């Protein structure tokens, strides 16, 4: 096997891992704060990608503004859904939130298929990021390097905000004891809406980044969310750092499996999930109850 193939798959793994990390991070924030298992996380990834495609094709707005706008659009849609529908689930068992977001996923995906069918739509790589670097042992396309860098930066920026700032402090307090946090004058319901918006905006960001690499189609989020779910379980359902590290590393593991045992690459993440559930049910970074 050539090093070209090895590093090529490593890069593919890192890119997938970047998307996993962004989606899993959003998922963990939403689950921790709202207690909602957001099955529609992949849908917001698709909305981000489609948002970018629509901005370009209907409004002539290019990649760079879309990188900001599409996640914002996903976030605003998310906040509207939280206010109108998801907030009604908080007093119920987790399963109701899961069912509601599952329904939302099917509805939104169905609506996109109705209007756009499932044929993939290409999204061009922005000219500034065309071409690549010849590293000797492999060819590194600029755009792919960019995706990894942006994802990692956003993941760790989000982690920093949650762990080190006053907004993050309020979010952590609201996650741990919502009622008492309200009694300290903090508007927790507004914070929940905001948290949901941030969580889905991260998925939207992954979607815009994915546009030029993966084709834009209404189906793109559906498969991804199952992998993301496994990653969140491995990392620990509420763990922010766990979601980021597990997302990136399982993406790489998946890429490496393609090199060494291609047939196993689709299931390796789930095998890891099963092992982790058996050995450490709260997840690698989760706290045992």
């Amino acid at each position, binding site marked *: 096997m050539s090093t070209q193939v090895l590093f090529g798959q490593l890069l593919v793994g890192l890119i997938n891992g970047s998307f996993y990390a962004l989606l899993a991070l959003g998922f963990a924030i939403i689950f921790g704060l709202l207690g909602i298992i957001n099955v529609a996380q992949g849908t917001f990834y698709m909305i981000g990608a489609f948002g970018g495609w629509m901005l370009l094709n209907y409004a002539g707005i290019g990649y760079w503004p879309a990188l900001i706008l599409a996640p914002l659009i996903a976030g605003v849609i998310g906040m509207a859904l939280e206010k109108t529908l998801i907030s009604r689930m908080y007093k119920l068992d987790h399963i109701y939130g899961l069912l509601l977001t599952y329904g939302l996923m099917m509805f939104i995906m169905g609506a996109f298929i109705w209007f756009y069918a499932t044929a993939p739509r290409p999204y061009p790589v922005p000219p500034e990021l065309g071409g690549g670097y010849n590293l000797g042992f492999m060819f590194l396309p600029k755009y792919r390097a960019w995706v990894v860098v942006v994802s990692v930066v956003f993941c760790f920026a989000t982690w920093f905000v949650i762990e080190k700032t006053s907004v993050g402090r309020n979010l952590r*307090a609201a996650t*741990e*004891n919502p*009622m*008492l946090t*309200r009694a300290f004058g*903090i*508007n927790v319901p507004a914070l929940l809406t905001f948290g949901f918006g941030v969580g889905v905006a991260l998925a939207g960001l992954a979607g815009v980044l994915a546009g030029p690499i993966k084709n834009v189609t209404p189906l793109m989020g559906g498969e991804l969310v199952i992998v993301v779910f496994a990653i969140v379980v491995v990392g620990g359902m509420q763990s922010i750092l766990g979601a980021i590290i597990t997302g990136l590393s399982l993406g790489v593991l998946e890429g490496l499996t393609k090199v060494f045992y291609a047939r196993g690459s689709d299931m390796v993440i789930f095998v890891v999930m099963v092992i982790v559930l058996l050995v450490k049910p709260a997840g690698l970074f989760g706290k045992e109850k």
Partner: protein
Amino acid sequence: MADALSLSIKDLQAFYGDSHVLHGVSLDVAAGEVVTIIGRNGAGKTTTLRAVMGMLERRTGSITLGGKEVIGAAPERIARLGVAYVPEERGIYATLDVTENLMLPRKVNDRGMSLERIYKLFPNLYERRGSQGTRLSGGEQQMLAIARVLRTGASLFLLDEPTEGLAPVIVQQIGAAIELMKQEGHTILLVEQNFRFATRIADRHYVMERGRIIDQIPRAEIAARESQIQQYLGI
């Protein structure tokens, strides 16, 4: 001196799920007054404080703060009117360190204590400022729970058994902090099982039993009614 808030509760009914916990509680705390609610476990003392704080789903009757009706208000709104709450279980956050626990409650105005002053008052907390909140000892957690509400500039304090299960030396320190709040003219509604502690600082006592206020004892009558009080508390 701060403009302390007065509290007036009239015919308060409160429920936990299907169980009816408060049956028409009425009490008044004047601005700057220190009042305790005493009574046995399960009498409804904690529920009364939680109802004032807006933390119960179902409550009816009237609760006014400085004349303003808040029976239907959300907890964050009540807090922003200048009410501070120290819960019985202390409510220290495990995911926040000591300083973050202190900084969490939203400031109501600029009349509260500075962080430096709070740390001067509670040197133990300063030493452990970077520790996870729940790593502190029980006494330190109670100090933190009280210290936490001194920063906000609130003027009505609801304190739920601040001395419960603490060593005498720590009770003294907590007592000094409450004394300080009183001197600054704040209004305090205190739930306390430790009657000796309560009599030292309170102007008046309400006695609660089975979700009702059954008696009221002014400071001057405490000595004369000692045996009756002991009976109320089941000592």
